């Protein structure tokens, strides 16, 4: 028995089984998310979604997986072979790597890094490499346009993303994800940082290249962007696996740093299973919000996408940092955080509304005729 204990105390073995758990979790989550997304969007669109495979179509992800695995692995004759075959992994591996730094409950994660947030930000920006390589390697103009768009978009949105998270870590006084959750206690940071949360969520949707920020994939223009030439398992890795893993990781981060992670306002110490339920509920609510936006909004144009980032989100993020700094330096009470941040968000919302408001309906001229 003690030998087995020693075995698990070995740092490599320990890391291995923790990684294995996270890997299995990720695969399960991706399968579930593909199903949930089709169902949720189906309901929003008055459809049923998949219904044929198993009761309520719950076996649909399995069927999809089999289909994708059995498909012919096509590669265009003119494609750059190395780039084309490497791209899915360049995109997927970083998307998975971020899960390494995430604490799932108070005491369980693969590794608790003291600069976990920094690690997360650094690695979560890497999949863009995969998209560029995929777009360039496909030797396809749509793919190239999509790759250029995704490069511009993902790198731009990284800036307000980092700043919003930075503003938050000013409050927490730490970059350690466990510390940040501990620091929130009963009141999650979303209460003190509504503006920061707004910027964060917008950047998450953009990072996932989802509507309204899916200009990179842009089905109606670029027919799938960087993914256009991929099929079968490569497409699955590049698109489905990367996207849903990123979605899971980013919303998990959001629920940790903004929604209080495994804490809730009604007391503590409810056991690891309750912590798991809490954190997955929070993550699921964020995911459902993203899916809702996916199903509802039209897509913005490339220039509008960049303008929104540089002209609105970036200044707002700086304002948030400034406000936080002011309040922290002078030691003003917590409610001023909510007041200033909320006020800034309201002003930003009004500016968007006022610049784009449509005044009045279309002019109609009434021409009456004698019957």
């Amino acid at each position, binding site marked *: 028995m003690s030998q087995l204990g020693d075995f698990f105390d070995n740092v490599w073995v320990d890391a291995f089984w923790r990684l294995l758990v996270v890997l299995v979790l990720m695969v399960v989550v991706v399968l579930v998310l593909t199903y949930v997304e089709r169902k949720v969007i189906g309901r929003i669109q008055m459809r049923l979604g998949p219904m044929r495979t198993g009761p309520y179509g719950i076996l649909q992800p399995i069927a999809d997986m089999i289909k994708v695995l059995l498909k012919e692995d096509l590669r265009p004759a003119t494609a750059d072979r190395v780039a084309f075959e490497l791209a899915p992994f360049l995109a997927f591996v970083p998307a998975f790597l971020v899960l390494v730094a995430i604490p799932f409950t108070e005491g369980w994660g693969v590794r608790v890094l003291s600069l976990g947030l920094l690690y997360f930000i650094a690695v979560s920006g890497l999949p863009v490499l995969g998209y560029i390589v995929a777009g360039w390697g496909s030797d396809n103009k749509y793919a190239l346009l999509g790759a250029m768009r995704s490069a511009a978009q993902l790198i731009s949105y990284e800036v307000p993303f980092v700043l919003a998270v930075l503003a938050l870590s000013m409050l927490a006084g730490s970059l350690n994800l466990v510390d940040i959750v501990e620091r929130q206690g009963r009141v999650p940071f979303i209460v003190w940082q509504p503006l920061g949360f707004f910027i964060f969520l917008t950047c998450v949707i953009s990072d996932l290249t989802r509507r309204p920020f*899916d200009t990179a994939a842009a089905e109606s223009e670029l027919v799938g962007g960087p993914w256009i030439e991929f099929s079968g398992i490569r497409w699955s890795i590049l698109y489905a696996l990367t996207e849903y893993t990123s979605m899971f990781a980013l919303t998990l981060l959001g629920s940790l740093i903004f929604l209080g992670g495994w804490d809730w306002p009604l007391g503590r110490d409810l056991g690891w299973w309750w912590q798991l339920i809490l954190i997955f509920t929070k993550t699921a609510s964020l995911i459902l919000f993203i899916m809702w936006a996916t199903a509802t909004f039209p897509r913005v144009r*490339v220039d509008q996408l960049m303008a929104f980032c540089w002209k609105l989100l970036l200044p707002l993020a700086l304002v948030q940092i400034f406000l936080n700094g002011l309040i922290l330096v002078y030691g003003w009470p917590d409610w001023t955080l909510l007041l200033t941040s909320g006020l800034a968000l309201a002003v930003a919302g009004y500016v968007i509304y006022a610049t784009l408001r449509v005044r009045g*309906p279309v002019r109609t001229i009434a021409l009456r005729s004698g019957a």
Partner: protein
Amino acid sequence: MVVEEERDLETIDIHVNVGPQHPATHGVFRMVLTVSGEKVVDVVPHIGYMHRGAEKLSENMDYRQALIYQDRTEYLAQFNAEMCYVMAVEKLAGIEVPERAEYIRVILAELNRITSHYMFVGAFATDLGVYGTIFTYAFREREYIQELFESVSGDRMMYGYFRPGGVVWDVSADFKERVRWLCKQTRVGINDIERLLTRNEIFVARCRDIGAIAAEDAIDYGLSGPMLRASGVPVDLRREEPYSIYDRFDFDIPVGERGDVYDRYLVRMEEMRQSVRIVEQALEQMPEGPVLPEKLPRRLRPPLGEVYMRTENPRGEYGIYLVSKGGEKPYRLKIRSSCFCNLMALKEMVVGHYVADAVIILGSVDIVLGEVDR
């Protein structure tokens, strides 16, 4: 003195082929965009992928048989196209149409205008990047009307229900009741879509001042229908030269101000409401009676002559030019396609905008390739 020439990085414009298999082209249209980065500097449209020779085929059919090609050219507004054709034949042969048949035709044609615009708004929203939500909403509403068409004509797409002289058979007893319900439902459906789309900030930002075309240019290019009215020209053939019984109804003509994509959308949405008004009035006035003239010859042999009939179709002015040299078959049948003429302004509208705009501008023209290529 030798001045060293300063050389920037060399950039070249690339040609992006959009279509004929592309989700944005609504059929088998193809345009070759020359793009500089994301900006479109030139566009070359290619048509003809769906040319089936409907005009020539019509010359080998007698006047009643040739009707079916109208369904197949304008496959989203079949009743409107059929109406134009049968009225051309009636004008040529001098046939009087019973009142009841006129009312049935107008009701079906206006409902068909609504289904066509539903199709437009669904496809247009998809071009804009809405993940099919508007599309499914629009298609549910369209389906209600489609079911009525099916029960009236016996077919879901190729109705073939109108005849020179009237309509094939009378509508069923519950027709009025069903159409009344449809009018009510359509108002709800339009509101649903408008609430989701019309004042959506992203939608407005995407559509405002995109592909704008001035009133004079619109006239010069020969645009018609919602495209022309969105540019601020209040021309509607139902009003300008009232055919059939359109002079008996009271309806407004929506007119845009800027002639951009957004105005075209608004004009179409308002037109649907006006169509509902026309249908309601027609239902009130619809008399009982026969739907075909008493003494309609089995084989039409119009006298020598030629005729041009034009109607206001959902996509614009749809014209039929018929030449008779006696006999059972038309000597020549020419279709004046509304989308074909509207498509001519594509270059004017697209050049200078972004690639993403080119797609929605093409969507706002609302082309039906069957009609463009005939």
